[in-house]
């Protein structure tokens, strides 16, 4: 294992400062609101899914810490062009990685750039930050109401 354990890597800081897809999608087919009552992180995630179940567009708006914002930013970049089923698999792998149940260097995965967040496992209080955007996106796909993580 030779991954970088540092939490605030350059890429994460860049995504925090200049998040990708940081916009509302007016005609989104799916959207959901995610909120962490413990820290106040608050995002809305928008997804446009076509008839073939492919995520054509992904965006988010809201406010929160660098970890939650950069994670949501990278997530939207990764989700675009993915099939919904694939998105769910990636979320599952991401979730396991931040919980320390999946080693991205050893275990097979489709995480790609998302491996950057592997260091989160060393910061148990920040796992919710990294996964808030993802939980919100999955809730949007499930068409559920507002979600909260704490």
């Amino acid at each position: 294992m030779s991954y970088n354990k540092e939490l605030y890597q350059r890429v994460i800081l860049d995504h925090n400062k200049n998040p990708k897809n940081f916009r509302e999608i007016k005609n989104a087919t799916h959207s959901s609101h995610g909120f962490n009552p413990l820290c106040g992180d608050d995002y809305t995630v928008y997804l446009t899914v076509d008839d073939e179940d492919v995520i054509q567009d992904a965006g988010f708006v809201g406010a929160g810490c660098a970890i939650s914002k950069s994670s949501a930013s990278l997530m939207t970049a990764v989700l675009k062009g993915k099939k919904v089923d694939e998105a769910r698999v990636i979320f599952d792998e991401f979730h396991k990685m931040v919980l320390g149940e999946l080693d991205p260097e050893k275990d097979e995965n489709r995480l790609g750039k998302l491996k950057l967040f592997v260091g989160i496992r060393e910061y148990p209080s920040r796992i919710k930050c990294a996964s808030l955007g993802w939980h919100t996106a999955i809730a949007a796909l499930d068409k559920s109401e507002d979600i909260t993580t704490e």
Partner: protein
Amino acid sequence: MADASTLKIKAPAFDVEAIRKDFPILSQKVHGKPLIYLDNAATTQKPRQVIDRMYKFESEEYGTVRRGAYKLSERSTQLYEESRQKMADFLGAPTKEEIIFTSGTTQAINLVAYSYGRKFIGAGDEIIISNIEHHANTVPWQVLCEEKGAVLKVIPVNDAGELVMEEYDRLLGPKTKLVAVNHVSNALGTVNPIKEIIRKAHDAGAKVMIDGAQSTPHMKIDVQDLDCDFYTFSGHKMYAPSGIGGLFGKMEVLETMPPYVTGGDMILQVTLEKSTYQKPPMRFEAGTPPISQVIGLGEAIDYLNAIGIEKIGEYEHSLLEYGTRLLSDIEGLRIIGQAREKAALISFYLEDAHPHDIVTILDEDGIAVRGGHHCAQPTMKRYGVPATARASMSFYNKPEELDALAASIQRCIKIFS
């Protein structure tokens, strides 16, 4: 020769280095750096004297209280009641029977809300709180108001974090039944003019409950001089264990109140048809209490008294002034809460770094501060911030630690800019 710390602030009336040696936890390292503990408004560390006293009690003196007719229980009961006396003296209460032990301030406020509130507050009555209360002094009143059809009124705060007293005057009226405000705000550090608040509430015919969770560790409290009806406290914020706290209540008020939690110990006589209740404080202490924690609380009070609470407050104030100067010099840092009367905590906000990111970066430097809404979401909303980072000081902190805090904040700004 003066040491470095005395050059930065007025020399304390006690030996800070000697005091630090009393707190075993302060000598550890975090991430390879010496621990700088600045989250004292959340919870305080315990001196060896408190830890040792509880160890001795558990290993040599422990027995149930108020029910055993054997030596261990009698001794345990005596120590337990001695702690109640110490707490009464610490708050200036006329008698120890006016001190009720609970698990902490949250439960103490709930006791007042459930027992006093449900008996004496009805439809159309008004309860006044402020815009800078902890959720523990907000939610119980909301629940009570919802249940009884009473109305919750809120004293606003100005930009500095001070209560707008003219508005308080306007809110008070014949319908006001209770005023519940904190002595010191946990989110901003504001020291509220509670003597004036209490006097005016009494003039309007209302009772007053003061949330003293943040004040008792830092300043001399005299409930008789204040003339409050209730005054709450939390042990773990005053160098005692968690799980113990309570309230002072005037006996004439306590006597009118029904039990809040019922069961063993709080009764005089139980038949299958009806039970009669003990007098206060026993009426409000059903079940076996946290005995060792009460003994620990008594020891913590002895510890504070040996140093002198006024001297503690004076030194902490000089730390506050020093820290405020340091942090005010940091570009892009906004101090939330700049009341003229302030306890030793600094809530701050950085343009470029979220409080939770600040906490993580500071932690890498061994510095423990709180980041979040401090269980005071309405306060955060008032100042237009989602959360703040908060450094809260104790008499075991040193000016050098605030230098390290300022340096670490600068590092934060560099990382996130």
